[in-house]
């Protein structure tokens, strides 16, 4: 359809046919407000229940521990603000990492305005948090720890089991942003001792604008979205049945095909890295391939500004990214790469390629070709400018 080479799957993913079909059904045919009493709305309720079960199954949780939200950002906001406000009588200290998504970081910054104290623990040069530093940061008044399962920029998959153990033993609520991880790696909320977990549909071939928050039975957090009695009085707002049904389908397909997708992506990833590292002055950011989210290749090229490289790739209809974009669309430096200890220039020269099972070998060789040419061209120009 589009003649683009899409390699920015950490930003978003396309909806697959089954997902689109079920969404259309609930948009056009069974369009009732799911909360309505009449039988025309019965199928909507069933569809929502089905999606709830699919997501619960994927996390090895119970269906009544799954709550639908408008996306990963809302889930993060709800988990952090909700847990904080509910438990503030017990304490006002929260621990998170320096490489979290802005939904987590800015929720924490907001809580600081309300008198909460936040400790932002550091990461090593591969993006891993230091478990000892985490342990040492725990105080008597610590009520919440939020550590993401897999980082969106460099793909670092944190040792969530160990964080879970630590939190459980200390009686502290453990939230993890699993937005990047869900659908790609297996998650077991009980084994990992997770209390709150955020996911977002558009990262696993679902629609944008829908996500979920897993809340362990027995963990109480304040509501974020007050309103009607939806989600058992915990999250108001008319059910987005089309999107919820779509998300359930997307989750189902992702779980069924996780292994086969992984095989495809790893193969492509290996070729890509091998070829790109042939370029002089190239360096991979983040951990080795087996500790990293599949498909994530974060790579820098000395003397090549990422903004320029991205524009050239764009001219060649190749979609990749770097850092995060501000509202106006200009590139901002990556807080994740700085936290990992990269210098400003190392960070400014890095781009993020995130592959999916829909990419092909042909596309891999094409992006390699374009990058090689672009890197040479940019470096030649720079030399010219310097002289």
């Amino acid at each position: 359809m589009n003649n683009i080479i899409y390699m920015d799957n950490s930003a978003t993913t396309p909806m697959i046919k089954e997902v689109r079909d079920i969404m259309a059904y609930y948009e056009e045919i069974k369009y009732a407000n799911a909360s309505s009493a009449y039988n025309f709305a019965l199928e909507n309720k069933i569809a929502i229940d089905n999606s709830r079960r699919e997501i619960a199954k994927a996390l090895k949780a119970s269906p009544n521990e799954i709550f639908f939200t408008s996306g990963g950002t809302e889930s993060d906001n709800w988990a952090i603000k909700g847990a904080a406000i509910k438990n503030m009588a017990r304490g006002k200290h929260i621990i998170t990492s320096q490489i979290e998504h802005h939904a987590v970081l800015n929720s924490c910054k907001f809580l600081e305005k309300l008198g909460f104290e936040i400790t932002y623990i550091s990461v090593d040069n591969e993006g891993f948090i230091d478990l000892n530093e985490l342990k040492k940061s725990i105080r008597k008044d610590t009520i919440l720890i939020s550590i993401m399962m897999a980082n969106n920029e460099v793909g670092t998959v944190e040792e969530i089991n160990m964080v879970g153990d630590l939190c459980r033993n200390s009686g502290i609520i453990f939230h993890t942003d699993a937005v990047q991880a869900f659908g790609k790696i297996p998650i077991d909320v009980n084994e990992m001792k997770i209390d709150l977990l955020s996911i977002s549909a558009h990262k696993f071939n679902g629609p944008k604008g829908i996500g979920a928050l897993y809340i362990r039975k027995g963990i109480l957090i304040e509501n974020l979205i007050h309103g009607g009695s939806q989600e058992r009085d915990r999250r108001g707002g008319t059910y987005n049945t089309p999107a919820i049904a779509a998300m359930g389908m997307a989750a189902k397909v992702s779980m069924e095909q996780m292994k086969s997708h992984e095989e495809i992506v790893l193969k492509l990833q290996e070729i890509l890295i091998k070829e790109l590292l042939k370029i002089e002055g190239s360096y991979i950011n983040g951990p080795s391939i087996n500790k990293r989210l599949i498909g994530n290749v974060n790579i820098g090229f000395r003397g090549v500004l990422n903004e320029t490289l991205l524009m050239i790739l764009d001219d060649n209809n190749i979609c990749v990214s770097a850092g995060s974009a501000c509202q106006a669309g200009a590139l901002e430096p990556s807080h994740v790469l700085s936290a990992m200890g990269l210098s400003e220039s190392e960070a400014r020269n890095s781009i993020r390629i995130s592959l999916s099972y829909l990419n092909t070998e042909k596309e891999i060789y094409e992006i390699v070709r374009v990058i090689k040419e672009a890197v040479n061209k940019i470096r030649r120009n720079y030399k010219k400018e310097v002289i």
Partner: protein
Amino acid sequence: MINEKNKKVVIGMSGGVDSSVAAYLLKEQGYEVIGITMSVFRGTPEEEEREGGCCSLSSVEDARRVCYKLSIPFHVVNFREIFKTKVIDPFINEYMEGKTPNPCIACNKYIKFDEFLKKAEELGASYIATGHYATISKENGRYIMKKSEDSKKDQTYVLYNMTQYQLEHTLMPCGAYNKNEIREIAKKIGLDVHSKKDSEEICFIPDNDHGSFIKKATKGKIREGNFVDKSGKVIGRHKGIVYYTIGQRKGLNLALGRPVYVIDINPYKNEVVIGEEEDIFKKSLIAKDVNFIPFETLTKPLWVTSKIRYQAKATDALLEPLDNGRVKVTFKEKQRAITKGQSVAFYNEDIVVGGGIIEELC
């Protein structure tokens, strides 16, 4: 108000396997079935979250799913106000009076077979149905109730209050089967609930802790008091009469060197009377609010088999009519822990003769 007898039936659905299969059976028998769950109680958010249990949110969802599968309409009706007035408040009051009520009796009498039947008639149905294990038939121009096929699961004990009108308009398809057969049917037709555990608690009391429930509802009216022996001598302190029932041995916290039992509760003096095991065996009782099914009133003495609680085995007893519709029940053998507030049910073999509320011992 009777609709000319059509084949439309409203079935009360708890989300459990019995009412779910009953709905299926009725549909198979050619009835036009409508599934309704009665919302009778709303707990705290924490209580609502518990898995299973009648009327919890997950059980409503189970009922809804079953109706979706069977392609029958489904509704939820709000009976919370009347349930509080007719079931919960009397339940609390009777405990405060030192009795041990069985709220299912009141629920069946006023809610399931009265209010719910009226609602069904408003919807144009001629019948209501439930998943109860009991059989209803008509013999010699009179509606009678018999025990179910599955004697272990038989629920006629809680149904003795049914009137002729109610029996005429009620269907209980599970009565002809035993529990295993019902579960098999559920499995065969693909209902998730086939393996669902039976609900064994009072639907409005999470975790069966009626003491805490009543304490919360009466806000400070439950007071500690004295354990006394038969002669009135104080032998200890109790935590509130609502926590005790006749025949209770455990949880008394009285170290007297031998097992002792609650033999009486005196709400006026706020005392719990303690005695020996033989003190809790009595031979007769007086029942009030008595209902008979095979006939209208008891005019002369009648031998029946009778049981004084749900789990008891029915044994021989003589019924004698007293004034005001009350009945004296004299057992052939002494019965263990006859308890005021509980129900006494009468049988003639399989036939449910009737029953009443135990008012006093004599």
